């Protein structure tokens, strides 16, 4: 390892330890790393947005290629800056409205597809008691129905309906327990990667 990369990697090791120090308690080292990363990331993303957003989407189309309809979103974007004035800040509603409208319009069919129709068709499977697959299909269908009943808002959860809702929330809890259980492995993997980074640096320094 040459001196330059030893120093830069040393900085990375130091900052890694700074963040780990929060596990004990809040301290000046954590505060340092926290404030540093907030500043650095804001600056970094502003620059990246300039090169990947402003230059190819505003500067090049309008100035170089003469596609003047790109001025419309540019003007909408500049309208955001009326937020700096108390008197004119209502103008910023225009771009916000456009942004939200497009977002909602995109979301409606895609949500219908991914969240409802796909799930619906995947659950409609033959059921029965003849083999494990059919029984499992039946269980999935029943539990999905109970889960949906839990999400009924306009009917009191009492009687048989209440029991179905109860089975529904139990099913959700099994899902949450499973979700938690499988995630532990992934999170530990990331910690292993960090520890290996520290160990490798120490090894490289010692030679």
């Amino acid at each position, binding site marked *: 390892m040459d001196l330059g990369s030893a120093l830069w990697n040393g900085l990375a090791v130091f900052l890694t330890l700074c963040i780990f120090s929060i596990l004990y308690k809040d301290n000046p080292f954590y505060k340092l790393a926290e*404030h540093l990363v*907030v500043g650095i990331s804001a600056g970094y993303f502003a620059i990246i947005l300039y090169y990947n957003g402003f230059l190819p989407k505003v500067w090049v189309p309008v100035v170089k290629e003469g596609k003047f309809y790109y001025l419309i979103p540019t003007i909408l974007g500049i309208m955001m800056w009326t937020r700096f004035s108390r008197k004119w800040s209502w103008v910023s509603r225009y771009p916000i409205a456009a942004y939200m409208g497009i977002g909602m319009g995109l979301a409606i069919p895609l949500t*219908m597809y991914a969240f409802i129709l796909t799930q619906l068709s995947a659950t409609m499977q033959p059921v029965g008691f003849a083999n494990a697959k059919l029984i499992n299909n039946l269980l999935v269908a029943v539990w999905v*129905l109970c889960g949906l009943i839990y999400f*009924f*808002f306009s009917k009191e959860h009492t009687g048989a309906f209440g029991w179905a809702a109860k089975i529904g929330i139990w099913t959700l809890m099994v899902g949450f327990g499973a979700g*938690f259980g499988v995630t532990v492995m992934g999170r530990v993997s990331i910690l292993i990667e960090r520890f290996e980074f520290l160990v490798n640096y120490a090894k490289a320094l010692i030679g």
Partner: protein
Amino acid sequence: MRSNLHLKSLIFFILIFLFWESSSFAQEDLSQTWFNPHRANMLIFLIFFFAVIIYFIERAKKGKSLFIRRIAGLDAIEEAVGRATEMGKPVLFISGIEDVDQIQTVAAMIILGNVAKMVAGYDTPLLVPICQPFVVPVAEERVKEGYASAGKPEAYNRDNVRYISSEQFAYAAGVNGIMLRERPAANLMFGSFYAESLVMAETGFSTGAIQVAGTANIHQLPFFVVACDYTVIGEELFATSAYLSKEPKLLGSLKGSDLTKALIMGILALGVVLETLGITHFTRWFYIE
């Protein structure tokens, strides 16, 4: 205003039906047609859903009262805010890490306004750290409006709505800093969260705050359920946002959602029965190309 809504719904449906009607001209080269016939099933579903929602909103506006069940997380918000104001400590509101074109963020913003209204009467700050720049103006407006509608516009402090960072973990680091140093007594987390959810919820727990969280991101729900005092699960997030505003017309949409849910359950049951009998046409109809 009402006729305005009618007019808009009318335009909306006319547009959709226009495309629907013209679908009979469907040809093989899709780029020349007015309608993609492979997606007709979804359109029918959407039209039904929209019609039901608008019907119930109209009915609610006429004053028909609707029953809505209790949502535990909802009461918890009031309890948490109440305790924070009693202690004279700040309330922290985190609206997730996604932008304002995401529906969950909008739902979070609606909740934020109502929280601001609750907090306004007391001398406690409402801290709103923000992850996406576009959310900043919306959050500012919501907080300002909440304070104004509680009759305390002067209590609004612009510095409490602050942008931190657009990057997930830089944002989480900044939020942790706020939790550790400004010691809010209530942490409300609503919106779209990812892996940072547990980083914030555990830090919040270690500071002793009451925590209420809600998200529709299925993978993060387990962590909120485990680390927070109350969790608003999935669809309850949208119901909460409708419920908090206490406007009948917004509640009407909940009834509409429920009816559609019942329809979906019926379809599901029917589909399962038909599949078992070996009839697959029905299920096939729900595939989308």
